[in-house]
């Protein structure tokens, strides 16, 4: 057992910290730090700076811009990025379709897409969930039919995050309705400006727009837009969802939020309230336990096999993320009402975002494999129940 980082790891952390705090524009980082959104342009700016330095897609193969880092290095990279309030590389590009193309795609497809994907020249979105295929993803019904040299796609996707900014969508489609439902699915790439693709934004309960419905009506794309082999889509979906071990639990981001909470609570004398302060103590402790669990997983996943404890990261990570947003509303108290206030308001910025944040983060335990699915995985895969 060894508590400290190795000398190399310490040096690497320093390198990352310096990079993130000096190369990414302060303004972007301030916006993130205050809990506001940076918008498309900010995300693109940050990712391109990272990509230039080779830090946008470290998890990819080296030949396509990745880094030959240890899991601990990737963890440090991720933590430092979050601690510095840097908008992370777009997950749909860096963690999702990029690795899938790198692993399953043809050489032509790699050359065509990977550099542009790493540099966020293409903004990808994800076409997985459907109105009747949420947690039960394999029930999807969006259909792709081969017609000559084209695929013709009909159907509907939903919960497409940031689809409003997207150039392309990677889409799971049913290509064989006759076989077992997991076996008849393929992954197809579709430009968002193709005729027959319509996007409808969905307003969320915090008043924000971040997810969308995407409709496909006789949408035609060339056959070469199929990733890998026909009916190999489910394998890719599992690859993609099981791929990412680093950053599953939003530890550093939650830590940063909790630190801010503590600061504003202290400034307002609220930490003299023992009940509130005790809640902060308990959250800090649970967050420490979570971070250490993430480190255990990182330290012991070097052979490629995920550590069993990794499945608790999403579950507990989102619970704590939500608990911090909830406590933030309590710290704001009645000032939380001023969510729509303009610059005339005397209510500080941090207080105005607390309630929309709280409401928005209810999604964390639903999207990307709900916490019910996580419990199912723990019970089934780890406990054998």
């Amino acid at each position, binding site marked *: 057992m060894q508590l400290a980082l190795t000398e190399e790891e310490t040096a690497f952390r320093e390198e990352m910290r310096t990079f993130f705090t000096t190369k990414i524009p302060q303004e972007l980082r301030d916006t993130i730090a205050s809990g506001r959104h940076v918008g498309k342009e900010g995300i693109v700016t940050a990712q391109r700076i990272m990509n230039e330095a080779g830090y946008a897609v470290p998890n990819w193969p080296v030949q396509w811009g990745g880094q030959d880092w240890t899991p601990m290095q990737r963890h440090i990279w991720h933590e430092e990025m979050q601690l510095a309030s840097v908008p992370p590389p777009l997950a749909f590009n860096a963690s999702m379709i990029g690795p899938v193309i790198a692993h399953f795609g043809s050489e032509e497809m790699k050359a065509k897409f990977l550099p542009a994907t790493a540099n966020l020249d293409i903004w990808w979105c994800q076409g997985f*969930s459907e109105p*009747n295929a*949420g*947690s*039960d993803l394999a*029930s999807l019904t969006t259909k792709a039919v081969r017609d000559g040299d084209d695929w013709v796609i009909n159907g509907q996707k*939903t*919960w497409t995050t940031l689809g409003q900014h997207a150039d392309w969508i990677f889409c799971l489609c049913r290509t064989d309705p006759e076989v077992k439902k997991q076996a008849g699915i393929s992954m197809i790439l579709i430009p968002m400006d193709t005729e027959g693709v319509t996007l409808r934004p*969905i*307003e*969320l*309960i*915090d*008043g924000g727009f971040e*997810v969308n419905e995407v409709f496909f009506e006789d949408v035609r794309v060339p056959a070469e837009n199929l990733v890998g082999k026909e009916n190999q889509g489910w394998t890719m979906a599992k690859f993609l969802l099981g791929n990412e071990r680093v950053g599953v639990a939003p530890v550093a981001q939650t830590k940063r939020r909790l630190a801010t909470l503590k600061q504003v609570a202290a400034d*307002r004398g609220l930490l003299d*309230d023992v*009940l*509130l302060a005790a*809640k902060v103590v308990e959250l800090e402790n649970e967050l420490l336990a979570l971070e250490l669990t993430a480190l255990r997983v990182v330290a012991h996943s070097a052979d490629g096999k995920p550590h069993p404890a990794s499945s608790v990261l999403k579950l507990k990570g989102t619970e704590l993320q*939500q608990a911090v947003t*909830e406590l933030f*509303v*309590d710290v*704001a*108290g*009645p*000032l*939380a*009402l*001023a*969510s*729509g*206030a*303009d610059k*005339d*308001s*005397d*209510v500080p910025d941090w207080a105005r975002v607390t*309630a*929309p944040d*709280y*409401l928005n983060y*209810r*999604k964390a*335990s*639903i*999207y990307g494999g*709900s*916490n*019910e699915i996580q*419990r199912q995985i723990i019970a089934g895969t780890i406990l054998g129940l």
Partner: protein
Amino acid sequence: MDFSLDDEQTALRDAVRGLLKGFDNEQRRAATSEDPGFSQEQWGRLAEMGLLGLPYSEDDGGMGAGPVELAVVAEELGRVNAPEPYVETVVLAGGLVAALGTPAQKAEVLGAISSGEQVVAAALLEPGSRWDLAGEGVVEKDGRLTGVKEPVVAGGRADLLVVSATTDGGPALFLVTPGEGVETSSYATFDGGRAARVTLDGAPATRLGDGSVDTLAALERVVAAAKIAYCHEALGLMESALRLTTEYLTTRKQFGMTLNRFQALTFRAADMYTSLELSRSIVTWATMVLADHSSTPQQVSDAARRAKLQVSKAGRHVGQEAIQLHGGIGMTAEYAVGHMTSRLTVIDHLLGDGREQTKHLLTTLTDHEVVEPVG
């Protein structure tokens, strides 16, 4: 001991329910999409039915009804998540006028509230005051007020403000008409309502009452009544959120069966029901304590705190689980549960959250051996 509504109260409930029938999430979104964040027509209909003057004496243009009737209305409004600022105007702002006002003030202001002619807002909170409502940040001098009140619910729409302020003689309440010396900046709140920053710069103000009633005592009692009315609104919200959730569980299919086949989900719905029913018991009790003329001010204040503590926890529990059990659809503005959760969050934080109630109840912990519901 009797927890049921009498025939008149039941008739009132049915009438209100009838009035609100068909009010759905789409209408709610339409009403909240533009200022003042609620429907003026609906407000008029509430006035016509006598609901806006419900608690005021008939002499003042009201109906002379009690806390139980207010509870019935608040709960029905909560059930459909109506955006009208009923508790804020009728119970809180109007309640302060009824408790402290001179006969002339009462007749004028309460009459105008009852008829729907005026929306009156209580401007008690300040950016730095948290849940202290006595108004330390606004100072009265020579009949004029200076300072900032924020957030003032419905402050942008209000025709009249009831403002707490500090005078040489201690805290007092004032009536202020928007206009000279009053600058109002209104914005949307996260539940779809409106609140405002109200800047007073030597605004002409009329003292509420003639000083014969203890301001803080009256404030505490009216705030207790408002807390209890909010709790009833919350009961209506929670009941609807649970109903929508069970309906969803029995119709939505995943993995080839409806969600009510998943025991982990149905057990959580059962826990929501438990939270709701326990809340209903304690909130109804608090209403009876408020309605009982033999209750002491301390008993009323404590009962309101106890109800609000329970509802704070239950509202979070039910609101969060309603969204979670719906899954993605629960996150959308097109669907009703998220708005219910938003409103529950507002109610939780307007007059002190659960932790705040606990903090106050701690001070009376050793005054009693056990908590007896009946004296």
